[in-house]
């Protein structure tokens, strides 16, 4: 630390570059943070000397990680049109999963799958509203109820 005691208080005019390491948990979602939201306060013997806001217009953007983990879908088994089989989807998280997390799953309604009702123009989704309510969910081996409300 630089010893400033020999200098003449009141005339000190220093540019101070402070580099510190923080063990921070980033924002839990994609967000752009303006640097003006960061505040730097200096203290001397417990008293605030100065408070500085960084307001140079720069921003820090927290991005979602590049997709790197595959979701896994189990094989369909059994006969065409059969019920009573299970499809299992697995995924390894890349970020923390908490109370505020929502899961989205996109499944194909593609190609020649078609509705089992009378709607000739609709594709069949093999995951119906009814079967969604019967699915089971676990994370890290702990089972939770689904909340689709």
């Amino acid at each position: 630390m630089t010893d400033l005691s020999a200098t003449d208080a009141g005339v000190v005019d220093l540019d101070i570059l402070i580099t510190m390491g923080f063990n921070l948990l980033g924002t839990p979602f994609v967000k752009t943070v303006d640097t003006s939201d960061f505040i730097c306060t200096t203290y001397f013997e417990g008293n605030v000397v100065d408070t500085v806001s960084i307001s140079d217009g720069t921003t820090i953007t927290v991005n979602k990680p590049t997709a790197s983990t595959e979701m896994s879908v189990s094989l369909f088994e059994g006969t065409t049109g059969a019920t009573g089989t299970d499809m299992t989807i697995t995924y390894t998280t890349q970020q923390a999963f908490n109370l505020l997390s929502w899961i989205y799953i996109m499944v194909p309604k593609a190609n020649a799958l078609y509705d089992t009702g009378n709607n000739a123009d609709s594709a069949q989704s093999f995951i119906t509203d009814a079967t969604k309510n019967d699915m089971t969910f676990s994370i890290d081996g702990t089972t939770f109820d689904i909340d689709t409300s």
Partner: protein
Amino acid sequence: MSGTDYAADTWAFTIDNPDDDVFAAGVAIVITIPIKNPPLVQEIEDDWEFYIKTETATDGTDYPTDLNDVEESIQPPTTGLTTTTIKSTTGISGSITGSLDGIGVSGATYQFSFKTTNPIPVEGIMVLTVPSGVTVVDNDVSDYTVTCSSGCTNAASASISYSAAYRQVTISDAFSSYTASSTTVTISVTGWTNPDDSESYDFTIDTFAYISDTKYGIETFTDMSIAASEGICYVQDIYVTDGDTRVYASPESYTIQAWCNHAIETTYGLKVVFPDDYIVKD
């Protein structure tokens, strides 16, 4: 004919997390969903994705209106994502209609009926496999006719082709719209030659979705059998032709009048059995 591309189905949910557990990154999420299998054997490709968003404003229980992306998966490998077996269903019936039901008779009409379990799309075709006992005349589709009297929404414009190697009749363009499950389909074929015996012969009909020159199996209908009839002939009258009915007379001929309930083919023979009291000379 190409299939229709439909939009993917995206659905969202959260979990009931009463203890506000926070799971660090790198843990496995496993979701098991009871499903109804796809109605045809076709690999399910593309449009799989798994992603997680985080609420930024709500309390985690109501459907959120303010979500922010957190992470997303990359596409899974899709090879092998398919139903493995074509459903097999016993057909309703098979029969020879009309009077041309005798052994070896030509020009008979065969009728087959089945009820769909899996629906048939517009791209659907039917393949009728003919057992070896039935003769498909000249292997030429112009020599016989195929009609669909129920269950086909485009019967008038349906077309047929025949593969002699596989003994299969393919009926195309018979469906102008989606055909639901539990629809009874009835097909008739006229012009083939009945088997040379009275054994039962099983026909099968397979339904496929024919998309981009590829057949995707939907359902197989079995046990639709036909059997040619031996028929019955009745002797209506028999008499000595020249009227010489004396004891030990030796008339040159007898006249027999008979009635049969089936057509008499040129290949048929005739056997007459006289009572034992008659002495049949060589």
